[in-house]
């Protein structure tokens, strides 16, 4: 047996069979071009010299011996910080299909060692729960056929827009109209909203691509798509541009970027679509935001009014305020006032069993323009793994409960509910969104789906990539490093945004037509929903079908 001292091992020594991804490298195909090693975002692979024994047999002398050859090969690192993240960039750049990551079917032992130096694991991405979601399982089963000619999704006209903003009860609307009093502002928008992803989290190219795509949808296709900024403001040229009307500005507990926004108000050509006040985020409830120092580039530092290269944590709560009720009340009022009561202001909270009490509070607040509930399947740029995996509330039942609460009070038309968190997680974006709409949402916010579909984000639900927090994004989506974000062409992102929205628009019609709906978005049309799970059906108060 080999002596103990000569074996190089420590408690956290792992071999590549212990890691989530194993890099398969075919030496016979490799030409040693080095592209894979240079693109790998985490330096999981390296070129290295190896020595190989060549058996040597001297027949005449009847002697056996060895020769040695040196060669350059590619090897996988096994230390935690360089473990392969399965992004697949190496295979994407390899000209000879010589390298690829494969998911390890063995257990992932790196999970036991990811907390080196007492640092709890932080990552970007999503919750890492794969498989069909409850939303994926909801079907639209009330086909209007018995007495009707069904609608034709291609030929008929469909109204697919929704309303964002406080809606008065009809009696009150008429009273105020007659008296010439203030009517709360509303917006007619497309019900699939690009959810808040901050200008710091996203690269400038990604942001520009999204904005270009959104502008095209509005101005050329007539699909009134809006996008939310996330915390951290908005570039000044956008604030002063006519595109601002497609943008929901977010204010969060760090108040980053708001100096710039407030200063730009006098020069704004139009009002923003809305103001979103972030109280919580589905992926990491109770956690503030965190923009790591390496993402605080010169531009970001200027937008946010902070020094370059420092960590930018947003506290979990809005510091200046005593309770959420007071906070919601004051902030909504302040924001409404800042924009002359012409812009809807609404809070975003994380999915939670306490969502109903926030909602009831809003119902009594005449300035509240809606409520966005973000379920736990949502994504994020950076959070503790534990928060992402284990805290929060799934969106479906949370949203449904809140909607039914409004129904019981007869207020369901007054405070539009928006839902987020895991919509399109498995690609079924329209189906997931429409299911939520029929459960009572006025619209949905989609973030991860947009990153995946419009920019080719590599993240998935089994831990692939998810290094958004490190500024290493191999696709250039969530990095402020010009070397990385130049990989992303804003025009191509814009094109994909347009592709995505044209498709969602068609698919909405394809769902609405057989239900016999065309005049208005089928918000709360729960009689059209069925699910193959008894307990879920009961909880959501929809039909059980099998």
């Amino acid at each position, binding site marked *: 047996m080999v002596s103990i001292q000569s074996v190089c091992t420590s408690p956290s020594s792992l071999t590549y069979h212990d890691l989530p991804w194993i890099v398969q490298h075919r030496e016979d195909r490799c030409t040693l071009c080095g592209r894979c090693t240079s693109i790998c975002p985490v330096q999981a692979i390296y070129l290295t010299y190896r020595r190989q024994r060549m058996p040597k047999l001297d027949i005449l002398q009847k002697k056996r011996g060895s020769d040695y050859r040196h060669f350059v090969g590619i090897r996988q690192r096994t230390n935690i910080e360089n473990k392969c993240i399965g992004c697949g960039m190496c295979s994407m750049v390899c000209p000879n299909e010589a390298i690829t990551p494969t998911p390890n079917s063995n257990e992932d032992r790196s999970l036991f060692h990811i907390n080196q130096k007492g640092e709890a694991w932080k990552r970007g991405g999503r919750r890492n729960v794969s498989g069909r979601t409850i939303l994926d399982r909801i079907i639209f089963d009330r086909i*209007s056929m018995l*007495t009707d000619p069904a609608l034709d999704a291609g030929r008929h006209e469909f109204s697919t827009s929704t309303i964002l903003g406080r809606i008065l*009860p009809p*009696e009150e609307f*008429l009273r105020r109209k007659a008296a010439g009093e203030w009517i709360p502002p509303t917006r007619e928008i497309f019900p699939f909203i690009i959810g808040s992803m901050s200008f710091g989290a996203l690269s400038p190219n990604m942001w520009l691509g999204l904005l270009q795509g959104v502008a095209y949808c509005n101005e050329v296709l007539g699909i009134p798509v809006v996008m939310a900024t996330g915390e951290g403001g908005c570039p000044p040229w956008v604030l002063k541009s006519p595109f601002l009307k497609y943008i929901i500005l977010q204010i969060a507990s760090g108040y980053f970027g708001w100096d710039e926004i407030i200063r730009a108000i006098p020069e704004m050509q139009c009002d923003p679509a809305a103001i979103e006040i972030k109280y919580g985020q589905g992926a990491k409830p109770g956690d503030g935001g965190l923009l790591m120092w390496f993402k605080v580039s010169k531009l970001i530092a200027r937008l946010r009014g902070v020094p370059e290269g420092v960590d930018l944590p947003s506290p979990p709560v809005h510091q200046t305020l005593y309770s959420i009720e007071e906070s919601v009340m004051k902030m909504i009022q302040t924001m409404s006032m800042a924009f002359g009561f012409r812009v809807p202001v609404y809070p975003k909270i994380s999915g939670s069993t306490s969502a109903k009490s926030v909602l009831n509070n809003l119902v009594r607040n005449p300035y509240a323009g809606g409520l966005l509930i973000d379920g736990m399947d949502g994504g994020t740029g950076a959070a503790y793994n534990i928060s992402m995996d284990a805290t929060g509330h799934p969106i479906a039942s949370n949203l449904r409960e809140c909607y039914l609460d409004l129904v019981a009070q007869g207020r369901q038309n007054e405070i539009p509910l928006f839902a987020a968190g895991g919509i399109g997680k498995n690609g079924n974006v329209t189906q997931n969104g429409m299911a939520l709409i029929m459960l009572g949402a006025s619209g949905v916010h989609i973030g991860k789906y947009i990153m995946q579909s419009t920019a080719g984000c590599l993240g998935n639900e089994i831990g692939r990539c998810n290094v958004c927090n490190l500024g290493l994004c191999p696709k250039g989506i969530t990095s402020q490093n010009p070397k990385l974000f130049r990989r992303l062409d804003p025009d191509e992102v814009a094109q994909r945004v347009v592709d995505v929205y044209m498709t969602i628009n068609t698919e909405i019609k394809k769902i609405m037509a057989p239900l016999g709906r065309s*005049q208005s978005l089928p918000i709360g*049309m729960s009689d059209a929903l069925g699910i193959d799970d008894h307990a879920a059906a009961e909880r959501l108060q929809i039909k059980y079908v099998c």
Partner: protein
Amino acid sequence: MCRLALKTADTPFSPYEVLTAMEAMQEGFDGSGLGLLLRGIHFDDFNYRIDQPILSGIAHTEEALQRLDEYMAGQGYELKYDHEFTITRGIVEAQDREKYIIRVYKDPVGAEPSQEATEQRYMQVRLDLRRDGEEHGGDLTVFSFWPQVVMIKEVGWPLAVGDALGLHDGRIKARVVMAQGRQNTNYGINLYACHPFFIQGIATMTNGENTAFVPIKEWLTGKQIPGYLGYQSDSEVFTHILHYVLKKLKLPLETYKHVITPLKTSELDVHPQGDFLKGLRTACRRLIIDGPNAVIGTLPDETSLLVMDHKKMRPASVGGRPGAWAFASEICGVDALIPDRDRSLDFQPMREHTVIIPPHRKEMVIWSQFNQFALPQAA
């Protein structure tokens, strides 16, 4: 598809006329039901005073009838006339019809005379009796309690129901008759699910399917307005929306169309009342109907109206002459009701139209949603 027919005329006529017109459109029914609403009533054997409320319904047991009598007496209503139909048994299937009730009452002495209080009181009587029936296994069904209005609903082939009740005998006549054959087949068969639906003098009936039924029903129910209940049929919400627009929002009749099938934004942008109508559309967003529908309604002042869904996916025709007009799902229905008219003046409303026959019946008013209308309170 169901078939609808309405006739309105200066001289009272027998409801049987309308039933024969329905026969002309017969491929449309499956014989699952008949609903009739008569307005502007004339009884052959009773000198009816036009402000006396008439109770319409069915008592399925003797006991129910007794309870009804006790209730009405308790409320101070005095029975003035009890219409006895000339019943021929065995034509309709249902066996448990103890008595088809058409009864005229005299208001309680000292009842608050204001119009609003009276309307509330009449509705309360209907709702109380309906609940009483529901609490007793459905042994009492009450359709309306209102002056000048008689309602008959029964399961069966329309003409057969007319024969069973002897409606051809001319003992009841009316100036307005609404009739609908076939129940809503989407939900359960139930007498209350038979069109027309009625609330405080307002009645509508529909040919079609309201696919936005559930969200609308939830919204109306949440309003907690007395009488907004039932919803055994998806079409009942049309009646309540009309009631809500006229009685609760106190808006003119034209607004009904703007509430149930609002114009789209680009159309409202160029509408003279676009700003108001956009706001109204948002505020009444949950009342937007969907699906193919032709809605026919009548009001207490004997106004009749007809509106289509936004895609005009259901047929309906109007024809007539000064003094007599008819709405029907098919032109042959109009022919049967008013043969002596100028057919070239017949009208088939499009998606933007509301056809109104005013109480004087001199003309048919075709109002388009694109036109301006008188809006008293819109600033």
